[in-house]
Structure formats: C-alpha cells, structure tokens
C-alpha cells in the first residue's frame, strides 16, 4: 500500500477501491489548491465575523460587570460573574436541572429509540410510512410543542389534566404547576419530541451493519437476545455514541419548551441554564453575568462532547482496528 492509499483509507471509506482517488491527491485536486481555498473562504470568513467574533466578545464581557442599562459603570471584575453564578442558588438549581433533564431524557430516548429502530429495521413500505409519520413531532415548532402540552395538561380544560385532577391522580394545580412533577413533564415532552429522531439515527446505524456477520450469528443458532447484546449492540456502538452526542448537546441547550410551559417555575423547579442566561441578558440586560452563564454552558457541552467523542473513537477502534 502506498502512503496515499493509506491516507485515503483513514480519511474516509469513500474512496476505497478507487485508484483514481489515490492519484487525485497529487493530480488535479492537489495542483488546484487555490480553487478549493477560494471556495471555502467565504463561509469561513462569514462564520468568523457573525459567529466567532460575537462569541469571543461574549467571553470578554463575562469578565466585566456590564449592564446595558448602566453602560458607564462597566468595569473589570475578573471571575466574579463565574463565582456569582455558582454562588447563586437559582443558578445552581438551574445547572442541576439541566443535567437531570439531559441525562434522564437522553437515556430514555436512547432505550425507546433503539426499540423502535429494531422494530423498523426491515425496509418495507409499512415501515417507511410509519417512520415518516413518527417523525412529525420533530418537525413541529418547539414553541407549539410547549403550547400543546400546556393545554393538554391544564387541570381545568386540558384533555389529560382534567381527568388526572378528576380522578385525584397527580397534584391539584396540574402536573406542570407542581415543583415535584414539572421537570418530569418537561422530560416526557422532550422524549415525545425527539425519540423518533433518535430512532431514525439508530436505524441508519442498524442498516449499515455488515450483513455477513449478522447471518453468521444467526447460523450459529444465537437467540435474539444473544444476537442483540453480543453482535448487534457492540457493532453499532459508534452510531449509538454519535446519536448520544447530537441529542445531549441539543437537550443541554433546552430553552423553548420550559420557556412557554413553565418559565422556570414553580419556584426554580424547571429553571434551566439557557432560561436564566436569556432572562439575565435580554430582560435585565446583565450582559456580563449572562455571558458567563453562556460560557459555563459551552464548557459543560464541550466536556460532555469530549467524553462521548472519546467513547466513539474507542468503540470504533475496537471494531475496525485489528
């Protein structure tokens, strides 16, 4: 194997078996680097100006006591905003809630999503139709999702809430108005919204499994459960972790549903990091504090992503590496 062959293999399976690809590295595509450079540059510059620059400003503001209503009093406070964030009981509660929401929600979605994906594995017209309809929750405006469940669970006229109240199940003011249940309702809503998408991603993973290995396991007389835990699951670990990465990051940034259904209440029961950051930044114009919260969220997300990416790499290496 030449060096370029190996490079082509490690960059992606795309060009396996195509000798032209290996030649291309030194041929047309190698020589016309400038062309590719100018194709990529506008997007990179745009994202830097409109995305990276505001983010960097946010990072900078987080070290200042900066309130838009009193811009003249702006002064450097070092890490005070960060210290205050962890000292404030509401914000601490929000951090705990956000983690609980993310971990419980994504775990439930993974299990349910995997079950649905296994049921949808066979590629026939029935399954394709079911999948199309199952995905509807993921396409609905998140704001409307919040409104639907707020309406359904209302204790006076809501279709679910009324009967719960009538039969004495659940708290009096409705599930969303009780500190003990509100966060769980939000987790259920998130599962309703995103389990189908999780199933879709896992289904793609299932469909890319090597059929010969599956056939061999079947021929060996392994039971369904044995095949699932010893053959299917280990082989699809990379796509499980990738699905986890995507969903974890989205769940951690949850804003829309709590914003319309509970607004963070009752008390601080459903306060999330994004809710507090938006409230502080755009209602109280407390730019420094809000930026610090945003950065703490980015940090948490980066840590979780790093752990999951590490897990993907290891799973990938165990399966593909000899």
């Amino acid at each position, binding site marked *: 194997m030449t060096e370029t062959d190996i490079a082509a293999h490690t960059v992606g399976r795309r060009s396996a078996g195509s000798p032209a690809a290996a030649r291309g590295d030194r041929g047309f595509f190698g020589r016309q*680097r400038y062309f590719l450079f100018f194709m990529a540059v506008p997007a990179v510059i745009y994202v830097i100006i409109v995305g990276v620059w505001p983010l960097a400003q946010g990072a900078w503001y987080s070290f200042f006591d900066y309130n838009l209503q009193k811009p003249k009093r702006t002064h450097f406070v070092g890490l005070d905003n960060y210290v205050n964030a962890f000292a404030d009981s509401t914000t601490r509660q929000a951090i705990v809630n956000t983690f609980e929401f993310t971990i419980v929600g994504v775990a439930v979605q993974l299990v349910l999503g995997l079950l649905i994906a296994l049921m949808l594995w066979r590629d026939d017209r029935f399954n394709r139709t079911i999948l199309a*309809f199952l995905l509807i929750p993921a396409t609905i*405006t998140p704001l*409307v999702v919040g409104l639907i469940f707020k*309406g359904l669970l209302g204790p006076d006229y809501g279709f679910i809430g*009324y009967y719960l109240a*009538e039969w004495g199940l659940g708290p009096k003011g409705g599930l969303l108005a009780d500190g003990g249940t509100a966060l769980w309702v939000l987790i259920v809503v998130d599962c309703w919204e995103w389990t189908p998408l999780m199933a879709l991603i896992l289904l*793609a993973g299932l469909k890319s499994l090597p059929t010969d290995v599956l056939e061999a396991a079947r021929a060996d007389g392994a039971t369904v459960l044995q095949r699932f835990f010893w053959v299917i699951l280990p082989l699809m670990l990379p796509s499980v972790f990738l699905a986890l990465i995507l969903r974890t990051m989205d769940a951690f940034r949850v804003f829309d549903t709590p914003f319309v259904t509970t607004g963070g209440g009752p008390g601080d029961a459903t306060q999330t990091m994004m809710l507090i950051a938006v409230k502080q930044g*755009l209602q109280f114009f407390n730019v420094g504090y809000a930026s610090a919260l945003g950065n703490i969220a980015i940090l948490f997300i980066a840590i979780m992503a790093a752990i999951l990416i590490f897990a993907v790499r290891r799973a990938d290496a165990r399966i593909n590496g000899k």
Partner: protein
Amino acid sequence: MSSLALKHNIARRTALLVITILFLLPVAWLISTAWKSSDDIFSIPPGLLFNPSLTQFNSVFAYFDVWSLLRSSVIISAGTVVLSLLLGIPAGYALARSTSKAAIGFAYFFLAIRMVPAVAALIPFYLMMRDLGLLGTWWSVVIINTMLNTAFVTWMMFSYFRAMPRDLEEAAMTDGCTQLGSFFKVAIPSARSGIIASVLFCVMFSWNDFLYPMFLTRLDTKPLSVALLTAYGTKDITWGTLGALAHFSTIPIVLMALFLNRYFVQGATAGVH
C-alpha cells in the same frame, strides 16, 4: 415456522401502529382544538366529539395580521436558505475535496459552531445589529440564521461530497472542463439529494426558531413563531385561536417533511455515517 414469523410480523406492526398513534395524539388534539367552537373547547368534562366550526380561524384573522406574519416567516426562511446554500455548498465541497489536513479541522470547526448555545452569541450579536442599525429588520434574523445554517450546510455537504467518488469530476476535467465547470456540471447535480436535505433543514430551522426573531424583529417584521409566543397569555386569545394560528406555523413544515421524507431521513443521518 413461517406461521410463527407471520405472527411475529403482525405483533410488530401492531406495536408500531400503537406507538405511532400515541406519538400523533397530541398533534391531533391541537388540530381538533382549532376546529371546535369555544363552547366545545371549554366543555366539562373535555370530550372528543365536536361540531366542526370556523370560529377559531375567524378570530385568528380578526386578531392577527396573518399575511404579514406569513410574509415575514417566508422572507426570513427564504433569505436564510439562499445565503446558507451559497456559502455552505462550495465550502463543503472544498473541504471534502481538499487533501490538506486542515480541511478536516475546518469541517469540525463548522460542526462545533452548530453546537454552541444560541444565547452565548445572541447578546453580542444584538449589540452588533444595534450598532449597524439593522435591529428590527428581517436582515438581522437572516444574518444570524445564515451563520448557524452555513455551519450546518457545510458539514452536511462535506459528508455528502466526501462519500462521492471523484472519478466523474476528474473525467470531466480530462475532457477539458475547468475545475469550476466540473463543480457546477458534475458535483452539484450528483449531490442533489444532499442539497434538498439542506434546504429542508434550513427551512425547518428558520421557520421554527423564535429566540432570535423575538429579540431582533419589530411589530411589522415579526414572524409567525413570535406572534404565537406573544399571543399566548394574552387575555382575549383562547386555546382554540392559538391552535388555529399554530396551523399556519406547523402545517407547511409538517407537509414538507412528509413529502420530502426521504431527504429528511438522509439529512438527519448525514455526518453520522
């Protein structure tokens, strides 16, 4: 054996049907609310049966300038789609075809931008728009949406083009096509399904988002999503009216996703495999 397999199949399909119905019930409830008269909505106990009525839709048109809201949503989505594709497709292509190590790094840079929480950039961006005098215009929303979606489109097209063999493009260039020519005549047509998936996801994102337009638009430039939010909690607006207004904001997207389901599936799993 085969009768066992048949039973198995029937059980599986029944389970799937039940799951799907469970997932769709909340949506059915929303739709039914909008077609009920106000008496039916507030009937005690809440029932499933009702006489269809247009009351709620009448009050939507009485309380909201629906056409102006729709216009804003369409303009914001269309602007975002056009700009994001113009920036994202060439970038995705370049990163996929480049052999330099930095290309993969840039691809991950775009992916990372997608993962950043919206608020972290929103406040500085808000100040930036204020200084430029763009606050309250459609442009401000289009500009920030384009940033987030360009990152997404670039990543998606990167994984599409990466999975495509280069042979055809090379052949076209051997036949005297320029590199730009082979991009337009060979690469873009073969990546059609990736482009459709990109459009679908950009529209979904910009049509459904309300955090940015909530702070960046004015009364006459606000889209449907923001109107829904402000309507909610207003005294005169009932659940039925909200449900009817929600029709306008959800049905176009749901229909689009159903008709383009194949591309939805490809888009949602792009970059995963």
